[in-house]
């Protein structure tokens, strides 16, 4: 029996049991990770899982069931169980559920990959991490860490509407971090970002970031941070590097525009959103420099795919245009509830989890400046980059971020290094103060976005570039 056959059997079983719509995803995922510490490999882990997840709709109620077994009997059982669970849901029913229409595609898609990351010799991958962390340790890092992660995912999707789509997505990435321990504190510098850089690409991504070339620098900077002056407290001009701005986008825009949050479907856990659907199209989110797109078609970005996990083809659209909120991340059912005519942002963390609204690639369109020009145009302010901590309220308004490193900006130049830089603000007020934006876009990958119950980890992409914000409160400390 092929994987498409298993998915088809499951869908047919769900319909036979009484579902009015059903879909099934067979997935086979291989994962490999390696950790190094101070020049030694700490752990090599290789995981493999495969199974089928079935979603059934009975009346206005959903059910989902998953098993790690692709036999005919197991697939049939999964379809039947999904429908039985949906029937139980009808005892506490909601409003009528429709699904916005999509073309029932029959297609194959694969992410670009020049060098198969699972085909690269383990010894080569180990040498890369061991050498980079040894170099960092030699330069004074008390704890020098390195990591790479690889995901190789194949999925086969079938729906009762006629979808039949297979996809092969290869993702990988790597990073290093140097931590130094001081009298009463620790300081850390990472490269190329906190947890590393990731994409839907092959090992060529890891080759391109050249970890070894930055190993000594991050250790030196972490040491320097121990004796650097504290970030001053007060309101000032804040220039954010692209890596930190990527997380700012993720937390204060990406999650806020998730339609399931806006509709209250995540109210008890992840939270809701400050956005009101009645204001879609005319609510000011930020300054006119702010153009945010939802674009799962960006080659190699971590949130890219051919079709989402409901079979909707990838397509770009604006979330914020010239500072106005104009779009959301949606699924077929949530879009129908909201009266929208597009979906395409539903994904699941593996075959055993329910597909739900997730970010794809949510990021900024480039601005007219360069980082050099932004600094040169700033008489007084603080430059911060590379995330160290992040926190935001359940409506995605009130945030506080800490960065690994800051620098004074005085009279158009970078000055002294600053330690423990933090900033805080309210989303639309903050984005409304963005007055300079660089053109130097990088599609940063975030491989650890948590959402849902049971918990799911999502992979998202965030094109971002350095930008300047005015009158931002910095230097918050305990």
């Amino acid at each position, binding site marked *: 029996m092929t994987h498409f056959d298993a998915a088809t059997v499951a869908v047919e079983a769900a319909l036979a049991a009484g579902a009015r719509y059903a879909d099934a995803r067979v997935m086979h995922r291989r994962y490999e990770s390696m950790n190094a510490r101070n020049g030694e490999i700490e752990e090599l882990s290789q995981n493999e899982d495969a199974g089928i997840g079935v979603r059934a709709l009975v009346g206005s109620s959903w059910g989902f069931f998953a*098993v790690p077994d692709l036999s005919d009997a197991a697939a049939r059982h999964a379809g039947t169980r999904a429908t039985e669970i949906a029937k139980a849901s009808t005892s506490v029913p909601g409003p009528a559920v429709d699904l916005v229409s999509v073309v029932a595609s029959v297609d194959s898609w694969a992410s670009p990959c020049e060098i198969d990351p699972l085909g690269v010799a383990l010894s080569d991958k180990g040498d890369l991490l061991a050498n980079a962390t040894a170099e960092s340790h030699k330069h004074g890092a008390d704890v020098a860490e390195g990591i790479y992660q690889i995901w190789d995912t194949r999925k086969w999707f079938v729906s009762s509407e006629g979808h039949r789509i297979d996809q092969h997505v290869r993702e990988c990435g790597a990073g290093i971090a140097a931590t130094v321990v001081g009298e009463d504190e620790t300081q850390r510098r990472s490269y190329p970002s906190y947890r590393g850089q990731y994409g839907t690409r092959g090992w060529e991504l890891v080759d391109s970031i050249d970890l070894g070339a930055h190993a000594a620098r991050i250790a030196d900077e972490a040491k320097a941070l121990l004796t650097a002056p504290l970030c001053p407290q007060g309101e000032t001009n804040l220039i954010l590097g692209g890596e930190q701005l990527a997380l700012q986008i993720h937390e204060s825009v990406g999650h806020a525009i998730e339609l399931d949050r806006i509709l209250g479907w995540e109210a008890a856990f992840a939270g809701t959103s400050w956005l009101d659907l009645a204001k879609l199209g005319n609510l000011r989110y930020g300054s006119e420099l702010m153009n945010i797109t939802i674009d799962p078609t960006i080659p190699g970005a971590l949130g890219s795919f051919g079709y989402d996990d409901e079979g909707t083809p990838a397509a770009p659209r604006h979330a914020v245009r010239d500072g106005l909120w104009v779009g959301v991340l949606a699924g077929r059912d949530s879009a129908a509830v909201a009266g929208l005519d597009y979906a395409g942002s539903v994904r699941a963390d593996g075959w055993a989890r329910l597909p739900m609204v997730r970010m794809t690639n949510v990021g900024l369109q480039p601005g007219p400046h360069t980082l050099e020009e932004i600094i040169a145009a700033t008489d007084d302010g603080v430059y911060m980059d590379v995330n160290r901590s992040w926190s935001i309220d359940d409506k995605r308004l009130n945030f506080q971020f800490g960065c690994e490193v800051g620098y004074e900006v005085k009279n158009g130049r970078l000055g002294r290094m600053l330690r423990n830089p933090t900033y805080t603000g309210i989303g639309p007020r903050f984005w409304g103060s963005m007055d300079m934006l660089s053109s130097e876009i990088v599609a940063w990958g975030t491989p650890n976005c948590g959402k849902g119950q049971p918990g799911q980890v999502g992979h998202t992409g965030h094109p971002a570039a350095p930008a300047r914000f005015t009158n931002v409160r910095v230097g918050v400390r305990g």
Partner: protein
Amino acid sequence: MTTQVDTELDIAGRVLELVRDVAGPGAEAEVFVERRELALTRFANSYIHQNVADVITHVRLRLHADGRTAVGSSTQLGDGLRSLVERTVAATRLSPPDPSWPGLTPPSPAVTGGNVDEATVAATPADRAVRVRRFVEAAEGLTTAGYFRTNHVSAAFANSAGHSLTGATTEAAMDGIARTGTSDGVARLASPRLADIDGGVLGMRAAAKALASQNPVELPPGQYEVVLESDAVVDLLRNFAMWGFNGKAFLENRSFARLGEQQFDPAVTFVEDVTTPRAIGLPFDVEGTPKGRFELVAGGVTRSVAHDRRTAAQAGTESTGDAHPGSRAFGPVPLGMTMLPAAPGAPSGEVAGPAADLSVTALVAGVRRGLLVTDFWYTRVLDPRPLVITGLTRNGVWLIEDGEITTPVQNFRFTQAYPQALAPGAVLDVGTHTVTQPGDWGSESFVAPAVRLASWNFTGGASG
């Protein structure tokens, strides 16, 4: 669907046989097999909008051969087991030397087999839906959201040193909010027993909190005396566990923990204990170390941190049974921490109004001016060594004046060194009633009473 049902121990034994076959008799192997049957019924806008279940058996093999170590895992049984062994053996051969390999766990008896409730094991989608309906109906017409969850985990461990264990655990848990236009109220509870979770009681409590916190006022940030309910205290425990009592962080001097020092108020005692009838969690870890009871903090004095076999060997002590799949890199973490109450066994009960129970009301009575905080949200570490955390309040904050809850207050942002908040002299009182809070991720299970603290550092209000 498999026609022959193998026990977890059967599977573990078969993997060990395959290891002998593929890698030879000299390889040291440990196998952890976990079968997890999870079902979660989720509701929002007062109806069931997501309803999921899965049954997954997961096999983890750690292999040490010729001085090198690798880990592999799979959900594929049958032929998949040979594939797992072959690729893990191959990975071991390509791995670098592992000089700190701590050796396999020797044969050692279990302290407990784990708490299993047959009603939880047998719970159906209809059983879960009934509890959701009771929560919704008890919320006095307010909009509700949350989940009801049942979880049954059975596991086996076996290694090539001749050690094997089996155990199981169940959990029934509910976490829900009731909402008005200007406020949310929450109620949560987890137990090994299905019968302990009453959706109606929890729905009423969530509604009482939501109704009592409507139209909150904004207060200026600053230092406030606080009463933290169990939900908020568990956030302290979780962060202490992850960053403070993490054996690896401790050995690398990245933790605040100093053994033998009076780092906390004498009213503070933290234990990890899977031997109580209320305990949720497997009775051994992924290295096969049996779990029992040990003190992390006793009377405010830091006594120990969590260890797996590797950090224990480095520290010259014994594993506490806190190895987990990621502990080699992240470090062992006591995910079953309990803060002991002031007077174990003292009666508690539901009360009218915003306080979660009678023991919270008793703490509030001692406050001249301060805040009652239900819950913390999105807490993140600014610096792990002093454990400075930022986060927000959620699901209900009230001003306390002269021992009475007087005014609902808008949410605050805080930036607070957690150990400092429980430092000697900082804990003014500890509640008499503990609550087992449902975990959000994995197999954590934290238990805490409410506490009254001298000061909490609120650094921002709702408006920024």
